[in-house]
């Protein structure tokens, strides 16, 4: 099956449109003129021929007439001569009746136009009649009428003459040729040949002449005497009149030629010419009309084609036609622009097409197979193809069958739309919306938006719908959230009275308990301008039930911890003190044992013994101090806030810390101004805090060289109510994250630690309306600072 358009045809299609033919009216008139000229020429020729024929006919007629005239003349002259001979013989008496009879009868027999030859006397009495059987006249008959007068005239003139035509007894027309006979100037009579006029023409002229012409004999008065036919020819165009010279008697013979063929015959060629001309003209008109119609149709077609062509070339949708085997038969400019391939590079190529990216090969192959099988989805294919440059882009392909003029399918037409941008935009939009929805729905907080006036809920996230039902959209917010709603009098502004200028504004921020579920919510409500311009209330309700619960538990736990901690701290202190006590006790035991041994052996010096005993006593005193300190610490019980000088607290704490400080080689520097006011605290508690901070500080510097292990305790008054105490170490410091984390319960970096030290410290400080925090020290390490109230 040939493709819908071949390449050659295709290229022709794209050639510039030919300019329309100029209207050349003369070109169309020329045939009419030609036909007119031709017709006229033909008519003239025909007329000339007609005229010539007519002329020929006339000439023939004239010839014939002339011939007829001569024939008649000669016959009449013959008759006259015969009669004259008879007359001469009579004159000279050489003629008798018998002779007359013989000669005249013979003559009459030879000339049928003569009815009889008679001899009449001068009185007009018939004397002889030859032939005797003639019926025209009888012997003894008296001529009368014109015959007699003619006879008289002849006798008188003595010249042969014809009588006028008369009707004989048989009513035949006849005329008498009268030859007078004189002898010696007396009249003897006359010979009369009775001419039968009727026979004259018939006998005188041959048969062909009679059939060819209509002959009519006219008398001198042009009255018709006789005709050789009773049919009068209607057409007298070819006719002539000649005079029959019957001596004095003039007769005219009118000759009319019978027409050969019909009267219409001369007009046939002209008629044919006219008819043909009309026919040709008519055909021409029809042809022209058809041509004009055709030209108009062509014009329309051209316009339509040009329009289609322009459309096809200018449209942004790529068009690609393939035949049933998948070979490309057509691509438009947009498609070429899109893919970057030229038309020549694409036409005739079957799958795989050059614009298929290798990684999409399988999918595209599948698509084209589906499309060729006629099962392309009506929504088209969405696919990724490649420009010539290798750049990928997304398109949507719609397949439709390509039908030729005969109604057969010859391929598939695909329209290709570049959807990279729309797709990207759509994907972006979808993603943005998805992100928005995910974020909003992912919130634990219930978010909803309600019209400030009507209370209609315009938006609600998943958390909100989970609490209040999934059909809340469009309902009245006041009714839906009645069980958990800030009382109107607690709102910062009256939402109904808000104007555009006030937006956005805070309406409520507080905690509300859900009346039914008992859950606690932190409600934050604001009035803002909604997307459609109206004023709406946005409420964010965070469920803080768990947090509240945890806070409560924490509070309880902290109290318990504080109590436990005090015990633990005391236990630790006791252990520390016990260890410290071991030293003096061991030393005392050693001194004593040494003394005993020397005294037993008797080998001793008194001074040595005394010195040793003195040393033992010193150690005993050292042990006593330790015991006192311990007692002092343990005797305290409930928190008891009393004014106390900070320096004293620090000094007492330091006495404990010194034990460890000595062990770990840390130098504790106390830098407290003299003139600080007393602080109002529970001594033991604050001492615990200080001790804890000192111990932490010492541990933090464990890895440092001994000379850098310095712990500084300082204090300053920051305002009328508070004193700030700082414990700074020179250790490695804490990461920013850890600065706050260290205060979390059970957070620890020490293998043997319990991680409750700093948490309790913070609780203790907060119990004193103070604050405890950590920050990086300027010279490296960490500073723990806390504030405590001073005496007012």
């Amino acid at each position, binding site marked *: 099956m040939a493709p819908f358009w071949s390449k050659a045809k295709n290229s022709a299609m794209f050639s510039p449109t030919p300019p329309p033919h100029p209207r050349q009216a003369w070109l169309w008139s020329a045939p009419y003129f030609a036909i007119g000229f031709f017709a006229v020429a033909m008519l003239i020729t025909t007329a000339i021929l007609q005229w010539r024929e007519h002329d020929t006919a006339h000439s023939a007629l004239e010839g014939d007439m002339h011939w007829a005239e001569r024939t008649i003349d000669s016959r009449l002259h013959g008759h006259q001569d015969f009669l004259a001979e008879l007359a001469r013989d009579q004159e000279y008496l050489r003629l008798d009746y018998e002779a007359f009879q013989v000669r005249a009868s013979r003559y009459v027999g030879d000339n049928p136009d003569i009815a009889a030859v008679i001899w009449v006397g001068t009185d007009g009495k018939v004397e002889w009649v030859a032939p005797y059987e003639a019926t025209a006249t009888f012997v003894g008959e008296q001529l009368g009428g014109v015959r007699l007068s003619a006879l008289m005239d002849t006798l008188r003139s003595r010249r042969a003459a014809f009588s006028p035509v008369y009707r004989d007894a048989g009513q035949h027309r006849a005329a008498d040729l009268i030859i007078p006979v004189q002898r010696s100037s007396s009249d003897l009579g006359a010979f009369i040949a009775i001419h039968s006029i009727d026979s004259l023409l018939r006998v005188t002229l041959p048969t062909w002449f009679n059939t060819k012409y209509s002959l009519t004999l006219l008398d001198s008065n042009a009255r018709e005497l006789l005709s050789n036919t009773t049919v009068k020819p209607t057409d007298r165009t070819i006719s002539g009149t000649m005079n029959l010279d019957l001596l004095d008697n003039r007769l005219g013979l009118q000759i009319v030629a019978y027409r050969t063929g019909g009267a219409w015959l001369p007009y046939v060629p002209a008629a044919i010419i006219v008819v043909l001309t009309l026919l040709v003209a008519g055909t021409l008109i029809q042809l022209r009309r058809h041509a004009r119609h055709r030209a108009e149709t062509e014009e329309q077609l051209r316009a339509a084609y040009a329009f289609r062509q322009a459309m096809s070339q200018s449209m942004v949708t790529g068009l690609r036609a393939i035949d049933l085997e998948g070979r490309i038969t057509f691509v438009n400019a947009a498609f070429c622009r899109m893919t970057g391939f030229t038309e020549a590079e694409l036409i005739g190529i079957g799958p795989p097409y050059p614009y298929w990216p290798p990684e999409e090969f399988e999918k595209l192959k599948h698509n084209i197979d589906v499309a060729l099988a006629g099962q392309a989805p009506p929504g088209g294919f969405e696919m990724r193809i490649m420009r010539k440059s290798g750049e990928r882009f997304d398109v949507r392909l719609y397949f439709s069958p390509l039908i030729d003029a005969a109604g057969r399918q010859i391929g598939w037409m695909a329209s290709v739309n570049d959807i990279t941008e729309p797709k990207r935009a759509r994907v972006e939009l979808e993603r943005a919306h998805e992100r928005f929805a995910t974020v909003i729905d992912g919130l634990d907080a219930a978010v909803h938006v309600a019209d400030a006036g009507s209370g209609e809920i315009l938006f609600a996230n998943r958390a909100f719908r989970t609490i209040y039902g999934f059909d809340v959209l469009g309902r009245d917010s006041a009714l839906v959230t009645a069980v958990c709603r800030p009382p109107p009098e607690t709102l910062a502004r009256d939402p109904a009275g808000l104007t555009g200028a006030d937006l956005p504004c805070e309406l409520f921020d507080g905690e509300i308990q859900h009346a039914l579920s008992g859950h606690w919510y932190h409600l934050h409500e604001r009035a803002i301008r909604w997307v459609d311009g109206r004023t709406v209330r946005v409420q964010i309700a965070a469920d803080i039930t768990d947090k509240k619960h945890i806070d409560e538990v924490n509070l309880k736990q902290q109290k318990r911890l504080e109590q436990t901690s005090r015990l633990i701290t005391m236990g630790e202190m006791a252990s520390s003190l016990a260890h410290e006590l071991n030293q003096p006790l*061991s030393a005392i*035991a050693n*001194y004593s044992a040494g003394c005993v*041994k020397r005294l037993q052996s008797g080998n001793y010096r008194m001074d040595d013994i005394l010195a040793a005993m003195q040393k*033992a006593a010193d150690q005993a005193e050292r042990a006593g101090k330790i015991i006192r300190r311990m007692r002092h610490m343990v005797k305290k019980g409930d928190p008891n806030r009393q004014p106390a000088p900070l320096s004293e607290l620090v000094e007492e704490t330091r006495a404990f810390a010194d034990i460890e400080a000595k062990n770990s080689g840390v130098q504790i520097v106390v830098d407290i101004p003299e003139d600080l006011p007393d602080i109002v605290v529970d001594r033991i508690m604050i001492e615990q805090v200080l001790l804890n901070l000192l111990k932490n500080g010492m541990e933090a510097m464990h890895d440092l060289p001994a000379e850098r292990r310095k712990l500084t305790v300082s204090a300053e008054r920051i305002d009328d109510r508070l004193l700030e105490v700082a414990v700074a170490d020179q250790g490695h410091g804490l990461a920013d994250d850890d600065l706050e984390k260290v205060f979390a319960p059970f957070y620890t970096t020490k293998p043997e630690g319990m991680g409750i030290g700093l948490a309790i410290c913070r609780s203790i400080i907060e119990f004193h309306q103070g604050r405890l925090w950590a920050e990086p020290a300027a010279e490296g390490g960490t500073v723990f600072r806390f504030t405590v109230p001073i005496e007012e």
Partner: protein
Amino acid sequence: MSEGMPTIHVVDDDEAMRDSMTWLLEGEGYQVACYDSAAAFLAARSDDMQGCMVLDVRMPNMSGLELQERLDALGCSLPIIFVTGHGDVPMAVSALQRGACDFIEKPFNNEDILSRIRRALDLECQLRTRRQRDTALSHRAGQLTPREREVMRLVVAGKLNKQIADELNISMKTVEAHRARVMEKMDVRTLAELVKASMALDERQGA
């Protein structure tokens, strides 16, 4: 510090403890050397030190345990008696596992510490004697040629001279000559003595 008289090395950061220990031990007739820190001891240490150490576990900078590790690494074989404070028992146990001689908890009875010191000194004395003997034996064994050492191994294993000759593919006479030289070099007179010396050598090598 005279030869044959062991010294008690006391390492403790507490001045009173050092002083009282010196007083006590000198009363017993021991030589005492005191060091106020692990670092001080390490600085004064020499390989020919005799006696034992009384080492406080809890000391600033370098603890007693850390010092023990360092000494171990240095190959010092002085017996160590750890002195621990209250609550340091688990620490002392781990010290013992690492080869410490003994430990004692403060405050201690003077007899307890003295008996431990005596035991430690005895132990140190034995160790030193054995070490000296082993050193002599090794020295002698070092003089043996490889062939002689082989012969000695077979002799000690109880093989007859003929068997030894067959095994080493040498003549009986040669075996006898080697054997005589082994006896001579190892400074033994009887086969039993040779076996004992050989076992001591094996023990030392195995140790």
